[in-house]
């Protein structure tokens, strides 16, 4: 962390770490636990220093068992705490799936709102870091498909901070997807302004304004979409980029307002495209904006294959070229 007169330069990971520390300081009921989150500070150092500062009752390592972590978090939330648990990697969260789907997501509904579960499930997710298998899954569709879960994914350093703080304060369980490849990205932020500012669960943002077509992206695909818009601008095409941020609840209003203005849309996501969040967004836009559309809504997603080995991931991930090629297919000649 380096401070200047106007702001502080933070990595994405440090922004998350600062959010955790700020929220733990503000609320004694916030507890952080998972695998290696204690003295080590997490494999991505997101919980760095929390045990030293808040004690091992507030930030601690658990036995290596994800269902145990998740199930224990349910009970702790039932009994008045706000657990923030870390699943070490996306694919390592699967042992906890039953707890997430059958209990985390359903408990408030099963009890007619008597039991609230204000807990956060932090998941380092998606690829682009040359990780070996089981370390790079984009698992958002599983969670987004499960009613009762709130699912968010920040794509910027300020959002990493504000969304995480908001997620911890949220009355319902939040699946917080942290794009691994962004952990080391840096931005200069005004921390004091962030601390005072509102975040955006349920709200998408226009990450880059444009007029000719809308790129709709979230999480790790947002920087790629922004680079594509930059390249398109050089070619004389103005692309708007929407950062979805909140997958559930989904902000139809912001997304559709943009598409109605531009008349064209491409949805971009890393996950395999079949039965995915990208499919859902494409369907929603088509249902709501049909009469404003000059072309079908297209998608740039991962292929429908298991996440590839490190030396092959470049062929899998949505790239600037693939996005621009897809934008070219939006029936411009008929416009």
């Amino acid at each position: 962390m380096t401070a200047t007169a106007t702001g502080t330069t933070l990595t994405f990971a440090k922004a998350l770490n600062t959010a955790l520390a700020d929220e733990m300081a503000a609320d004694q009921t916030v507890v952080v636990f998972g695998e290696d989150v204690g003295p080590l500070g997490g494999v991505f150092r997101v919980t760095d220093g929390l045990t030293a500062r808040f004690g091992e009752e507030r930030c601690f390592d658990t036995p290596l068992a994800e269902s145990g972590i998740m199930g224990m978090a349910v009970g702790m939330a039932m009994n008045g705490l706000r657990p923030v648990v870390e699943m070490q990697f996306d694919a390592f969260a699967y042992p906890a799936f039953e707890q997430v789907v059958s209990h985390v997501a359903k408990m408030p509904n099963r009890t007619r709102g008597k039991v609230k579960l204000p807990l956060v499930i932090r998941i380092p997710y998606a690829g682009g870091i040359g990780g070996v298998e089981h370390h790079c899954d984009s698992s958002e569709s599983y969670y987004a498909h499960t009613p009762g879960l709130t699912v968010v994914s920040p794509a910027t350093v300020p959002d990493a901070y504000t969304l995480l703080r908001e997620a911890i304060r949220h009355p319902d369980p939040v699946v917080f997807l942290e794009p691994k490849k962004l952990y080391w990205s840096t931005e200069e932020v005004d921390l004091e302004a962030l601390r005072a500012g509102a975040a955006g669960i349920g709200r998408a943002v226009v990450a880059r304004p444009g007029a000719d077509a809308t790129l709709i992206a979230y999480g790790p695909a947002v920087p790629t979409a922004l680079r594509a818009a930059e390249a398109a601008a050089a070619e004389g095409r103005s692309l708007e980029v929407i950062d979805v941020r909140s997958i559930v609840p989904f902000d139809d209003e912001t997304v559709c307002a943009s598409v109605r203005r531009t008349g064209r849309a491409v949805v971009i996501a890393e996950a395999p495209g079949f039965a995915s969040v990208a499919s859902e967004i494409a369907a929603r836009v088509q249902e709501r904006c049909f009469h404003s559309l000059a072309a079908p809504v297209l998608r740039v997603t991962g292929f429908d294959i298991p996440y590839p080995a490190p030396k092959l991931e470049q062929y899998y991930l949505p790239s600037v070229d693939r996005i621009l090629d897809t934008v070219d297919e939006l029936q411009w000649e008929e416009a």
Partner: protein
Amino acid sequence: MTTSTGKPRRDPVGHPLDHMAQTAAAQDGAESFMLPQAAPVQLVDPDGRHVHNDMYPLPDGQTLLAEYRQLVIGRRVNEQANALVRQGRLAVYPSSHGQEACQVAAAACLQGQDWMFPTYRDTVAVMARGVDPIQTLTLLRGDWHSGYDPYEHKVSIQATPLATQLLHAVGVAHAAKLKGEDTVVLAMCGDGATSEGDFHEALNFAAVFHLPVVFFVQNNQYAISVPLKHQSVAPSLAHKAIGYGMPGERVDGNDLAALLGVLLKGVDRARAGGGPVLVEAFTYRMQSHTNADDATRYRTDEEVQAWLPRDPIIRLRSYLTGLHLLTEQKEEEFARDAETVAARMRDGLNAEVQVDPEDLFRFVYTEKTAQLREQAAKLREELSRETV
């Protein structure tokens, strides 16, 4: 530090294996303390005679008399619920007939500030803890997934997935410990659930974090149709405790006195900061898994008949009658109390229940999402057209 020969070691750093040797030695002592007794603890035998046990004194007569009343009510609840299924008032009922002593003891061993985490077969335990019978049976009546406020009696909702609730129990206990609350948590499951991964994770977490949890396994010999020998070849389910570093105990699950003795000891130990324990009650599911099951397909009538003389009510009745505590007058009084509960079940469940379609959307999130508002409006509109 000494060697096995008793000579002092000259190497001040010691041998790398010393630590292991010490740990093994420590465990030698601990193991015997963690090991369950050779046979399930029994304090009153099937003929109603007191069986002496050095570790577990017999609860006093008045306590047993009060809990005997609960047994009688519990048996009546099981009968009435089965009848209500036949009449179509309950979708299904997993009966605890034969296991009522476990049910009653589960409620009796807890104090008001403690928590109970029951399964779908623990209806009688939930009612014995004080939850209203109709609210308890909401799940099986089918108008909602759970009908009671878990915080009112500190009873979590009845779990239909297996062993998942054990981890929630661990979490409640962990939060209680961090907050300095005087709370013990009773985490209940059956023999089949001990095969689930969450059973393992729950016991391990409870032990590692030294939490006030009493794990209470009702081993009724069957997981639907599958007998215990296909679940585990451990010497007993209670022996599993030793692998987690907690004491395990086996108890005759049809002996209310022994159940009270063993569970109360576990609860007291947990409350005093002694950490978790695992209690296995050896009992028998006298009826099918549910009314939808046919137990004759996987067990013989002879086997079931053999358990009849071990019934939990018969033996306690003999014992208390022998003490002249249980009189004919008392028996009549208890039967009337049981009938009152049964009548309450009939009245409550025969009444037509009104469901509100708006409830479908009401509790999914604290605040309805725009999408759910839209869907609720669509359903409302659809229904308004039907009634025109």
